[in-house]
């Protein structure tokens, strides 16, 4: 059996740096906000799925929220932790086992780039010792080739970052809340060519919680009135297929393989019974400017190379034909790994409910978007897509 599943509560702890709160406390804050939003108590929750990469086990949250004995599963799926927690919570309800579920993610990272250990990824030590095991390099190598093959200019990379900071300035939960002009972005120190400092997101802190309900329960709670709830039309999570090009690969196949994002996107669109042209607001993984550009095509919103025209014409800006990363994305919000994928869904929930304030997307009927799309990509090569519908 498969029940319709709704998101009836959404809470966020502002992203950025909050010295006085641990990562888990930021997660607890987000859960309390989500409960308040849904008009529910912690004791009402029937199951929970959550995770963080660097701020401890999510299930320890029960010490602060209450020892209600609910089943609480820790999720660890790299940058796609949030998307995976949401998928698990959705399945728990769709299966008919539960009527209310929590998906939560939080994190708190040390400053600077992530430093991974080769052995944790089944790689030899020399790969890290010689300085070739950095996530930032993978993103630069992927966009460099893409730019050469599809005629993407460096200015287009800059425009993605400029848009992110412009949107972030309008978003209460964003970390970077000041606009940065294109010239400053283009002239900033080079991190990994062609990507400058302002084209990369930074590890940060934050927490997001979403409360999911079965259709029956949502109606019983009156949660679907006044746009209080949005339906999860489809969630799809896919890991990498053979011969793909992912983070941390000393050797890549000469055969051109598939991409986890393309697979997850296709599965999500098919499951939801819609196409890219129906989406009115999208949040795409933008670890750096190039990722947003490539993910626009990998998720089916444009053809390879068309991004040049999209960015020049502002089609993905607020007010454009498909606003992308309306809250500033990872570039303006930073990336607390466990929370990041859920922030994207949170943003779509707010947009679909018409509660997005200065960054509200009008949608085709002027009453806010009807369909929202979120995509998260994580190491070592998996993608999660969630399509929401009001």
């Amino acid at each position, binding site marked *: 059996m498969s029940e319709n599943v709704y998101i009836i509560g959404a809470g966020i702890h502002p992203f950025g740096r909050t010295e006085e709160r641990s990562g888990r406390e930021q997660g607890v804050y987000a859960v309390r906000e989500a409960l308040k939003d849904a008009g529910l108590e912690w004791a009402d929750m029937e199951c929970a799925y959550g995770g963080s990469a660097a701020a401890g086990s999510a299930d320890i949250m029960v010490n602060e929220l209450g020892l209600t004995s609910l089943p609480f599963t820790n999720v660890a799926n790299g940058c796609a932790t949030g998307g995976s927690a949401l998928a698990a919570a959705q399945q728990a309800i769709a299966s008919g086992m539960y009527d209310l579920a929590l998906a939560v993610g939080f994190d708190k990272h040390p400053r*600077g*780039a992530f*430093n991974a*250990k*080769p052995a944790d990824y*089944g790689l*030899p*030590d*020399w790969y*890290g*010792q*010689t*300085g*070739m*095991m*950095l996530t930032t*390099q993978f993103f*630069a*190598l*992927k966009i*460099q*080739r893409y730019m*050469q*093959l599809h005629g993407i200019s460096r200015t287009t990379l800059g425009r993605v970052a400029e848009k992110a900071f412009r949107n972030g300035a309008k978003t209460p939960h964003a970390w970077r809340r000041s606009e940065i002009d294109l010239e400053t972005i283009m002239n900033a*120190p*080079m*991190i*990994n*060519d*062609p990507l400058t400092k302002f084209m990369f997101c930074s590890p940060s802190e934050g927490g997001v919680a979403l409360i999911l309900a079965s259709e029956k329960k949502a109606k019983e709670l009156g949660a679907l009135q006044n746009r209080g709830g949005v339906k999860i039309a489809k969630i799809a999570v896919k890991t990498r297929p053979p011969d793909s090009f992912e983070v941390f*690969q*000393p*050797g*890549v*196949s*000469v055969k051109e393989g598939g991409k986890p994002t393309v697979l997850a996107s296709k599965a999500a669109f098919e499951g939801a019974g819609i196409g890219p042209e129906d989406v009115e607001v999208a949040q795409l993984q933008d670890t750096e400017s190039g990722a947003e550009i490539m993910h626009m095509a990998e998720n089916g919103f444009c053809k390879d190379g068309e991004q040049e025209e999209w960015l020049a014409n502002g089609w993905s800006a607020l007010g454009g034909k498909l606003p992308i990363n309306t809250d500033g994305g990872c570039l303006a919000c930073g990336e607390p790994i466990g929370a990041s994928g859920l922030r994207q869904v949170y943003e779509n929930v707010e947009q679909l409910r018409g509660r997005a304030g200065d960054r509200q997307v009008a949608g085709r009927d002027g009453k806010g978007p009807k369909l929202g799309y979120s995509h998260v990509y994580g190491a070592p090569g998996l993608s999660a897509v969630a399509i929401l519908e009001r």
Partner: protein
Amino acid sequence: MGEKIDPNLWSDDPEPHLMGGKLPSGEVVFPMPAGDAAKNVEPYRLSRRGKLWSWTSQGFLPKEPYEGPGSGPDEGPPDFKPFLLGYVELPGEVIVESRIVDAGLDDLELGMEMEFTIVPFNDTYDTYAFRPVANVQEKAA
């Protein structure tokens, strides 16, 4: 010549080759797998020539386990030397990630011919790299 950063990474010929592995399916992988994963995988000497598939620069000092210049306890960003790296496609074999030497960013072009070489990595160790073939010819001239 320093010590090899990994004894199995390249061959000890006068003209050394990077060592990959050939799977029973015929597919060539890099690096040669170790431990149980090496079962039924034949060590395979990779081509010394290939084409540039992508590239980037490393502009900041990587955290550990990086052991190059700048990484020591009394060192830091001023001791770090930015470097180039990329992927080189060895036709019909595998695309390998490598340091790129004897070139600046502006010299690099998609598909340009690259050749294998060994370079010092720090005071103790050597590692492998690829360099544009055009530069090799210039030097010989």
